[in-house]
């Protein structure tokens, strides 16, 4: 019985070490949050038990916001050429793409 317990503990410890190593191997970089992927996106600052009810009762027209977010992207694109060229003609900056 004692032998079986030691064996189980040993297996558990081994599994734990493998998990830790796997996590380290992954560089601890998290995947994108599930709730932010398309389709599932609504969360309220309410107690967990009430979140769903609050979100259903909330009068928010997401489509209206989406149109303005699309406009924002295009409007902010005005600065992109300036930021790209500024990176190319400034010392000490690695070339990247700016946000818009």
């Amino acid at each position, binding site marked *: 019985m004692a032998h079986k317990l030691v064996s189980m503990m040993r297996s558990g410890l081994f599994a734990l070490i493998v998990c830790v190593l796997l996590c380290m191997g992954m560089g601890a970089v998290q995947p994108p949050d599930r709730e932010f992927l*398309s389709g599932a996106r609504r969360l*309220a600052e309410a107690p967990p038990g009430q979140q769903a009810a*609050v979100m259903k009762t909330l009068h928010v027209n997401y489509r209206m916001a989406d149109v*303005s977010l*699309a406009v924002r992207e295009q409007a*902010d694109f005005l600065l992109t050429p300036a930021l790209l060229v500024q990176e190319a*003609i400034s010392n000490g*900056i*690695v070339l990247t793409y700016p946000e*818009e």
Partner: protein
Amino acid sequence: MKKTRICARGLWVAGVLVAFSITGAIGLCQIEPSGRKAGLIQFDVISDLNMDWGGYTSAVRFARYWVCQDYYAVAVVWSEPHGRDVQDKKTMVVLSDREGFRIKYELDADWHPLNTTYPKPVGERPAFRWGGGAYGGDEMRFAEAAAVSRRVYVSDLEPPKSKKRDAGGVTDVDVPRAPDGITRKLAHLKVQTKDDRIESMDLFDNQRRPLGRMRYEYQPDGKVPRIATLVADLPVRREKLAVDANVVVIPRHAGAPEQKETYRVPDVNHVSHTGGRTAIVTYSDVPVGDKVLRLPVKVEVRRSDDKRLVRSARLMNFRRVDLDKEGVWKAAKAFASLGDEYWTFRRLNAKYIDFQPTLGPLRVDPNDLAFVQKLIAKYPLPEVIQPPGGYRSGARPQVTRPRRMEVEPDDARLIRQLEAYYMRTLSTPLTEEQRAEMKKGTIFRSGGRLSASERPVAELRSKLRMILVYHHVPVLPEDRPPEMDPNDARVIHELQAHYEKLVTQSDRGLPGQLKALHVLTRLDLMLKDYDAFERHTGRYLQMLQDAGLGGMYMTGGYGNIQNLAERRQYDKANKLMRQWADRSAGANDADGVYRFCGSDLGGNGDPWAAVQLLDRFLKRPGLSPVQRYEGLALRAISLDKIDKLLADPETAYDESRKVQAGWVLSGTTKAQVAKLVEPAVRQAVSAWEALGPARLSEAKPYSTNDMAGMQQNLMGAPDATRLQETSARLDRIVSQRFGQKGTTPRPGETKRPAPSR
């Protein structure tokens, strides 16, 4: 002794040389791709913007830029179609340096948020407060701050000994603080390098969430690596939407008494950049002054999921300029300024073209709500009756459609006056305190947030508006623009001479010439000189075609055809439309054509133009089955719309519809259109049936446009795509014409009974 001194001197010289060579080597062997200081540079940019919405589906922005390491300035000189844009940004000037973000907007010089300097740091972008296509241009400062906060510095990647590099050449970097104390969103990097050049780089925030992945391609020739393209994969982005609401819910606990609970919801999580974005920047050697610089010359941003082009930019005319910062600000303002002649043109345009009638003083008490309600009751409006069980039942709400009535002229005047009065009441000016808050970007006053006392007024206004839209409203004598004043005619001729010169001046560049042509076509309309209008439109279209602006050829060209049709110049409109449809079909891809045909300012608003365009586009070889189906569906929808317009004399009463009907009938007959509709619907349905599995997924008839926002939230219904919305519209036509009901599946369903043939 002498020998010893010579030897010592030689050692000193050698030491200095070694020191110089090491310093030089450090300077030269910088990591690629990275920037090199190059003074102040001026260049021009043409940006092509695509939108999936009811407004202009294509817009082009022309701007000049001045950029150096310490600051930059932008001046928007013109935009298309016809001076419009996704937002009207012409005359906007921005100068951003270490101290602040300066902005000026000549078109609305009294609007404080767009005519001020925002000190830096500008702070965090507040929760997103805009809706329905509105957006405060001054919030661009937050976009700049976000871009700077995720910049990568060469110093982040040095010294290499402190970094972990694996066998595959990937280095993990925890980035330090930025120089000059800039706030950094970037916290971690994974860099893949090869021979002192970066192959790719993953950017993460402090929670190790991805900010983007940069991939670099280099010119294959030469010893020094020179960047050819930068490909940035940008993920879906987190967004906070400001709702600022109190929500009352009644929790259901078994056996417990029902008790209301109120929760404050300041904002909700949301996403932007749906589908992700892939930006491709092309770099090239550009001679600037006495140097050759490696600079970005082209940018393309596509959706990552379906590869559709969202926007692009061409950078050109690079040159070195010798100005100080204030000189740049002055030059930018001068470049973007519309000039005195343009303001004279705008005054005349408002008087004769975009004429706003004056309806005189209101002769009733607008606070006598009983009277107003009685007036509204005289003209019954459509009502939406929810199905038993509400939204959850999934059944479609019923809409009652009362008979359209002739609104009496006196009532029409009164309704319009009251509607305008209530609108003004609801748009009270901002207080000084609100202005100060707005400057900080912490408030946005929208019509959507009304007090309890304002809500009944808003409801009355909405009903008055509906009467004007739904019933037949007569044209009042005040609606007619004034006769041409001889003095104005003289000024118009002077303006014509001025702008005719500008059209031929190539030093003004394409935006200057397009601006001049826009003014000339509007002056032609004022003088009712349609031959000149046709001539100027021809030049306008030629310029767009030569510049490779196919989307604008379609959108802007259509605007001019519409101008002719509205003035009943049907022959000229038809002639121009044939050329326009031929070239637009050849110069645009399926996405561009279908976006235009589904838009309210394009084919959806003018189904006749959509049919002409689609007839030509669908002859193009190489369309995929889905592309062919979407085109056929849009064609069937447009023909159905024209058929209904011609068949129902009541709907043709409205002035714009009457014009449209007259235009259609100038080239065909009611019977000919009627004959085309059913075969077009059958052809579209056949194309849908032939799609195989895609007909129940990608092309599934499913609409969220018809759902109220609240209904969509309750049902948890995902947004429909453009193709699914088109299928749903086709589905409704099939139901109406072939008597099939309830074919549109609910969000979770995939089944759609095929129309029996």
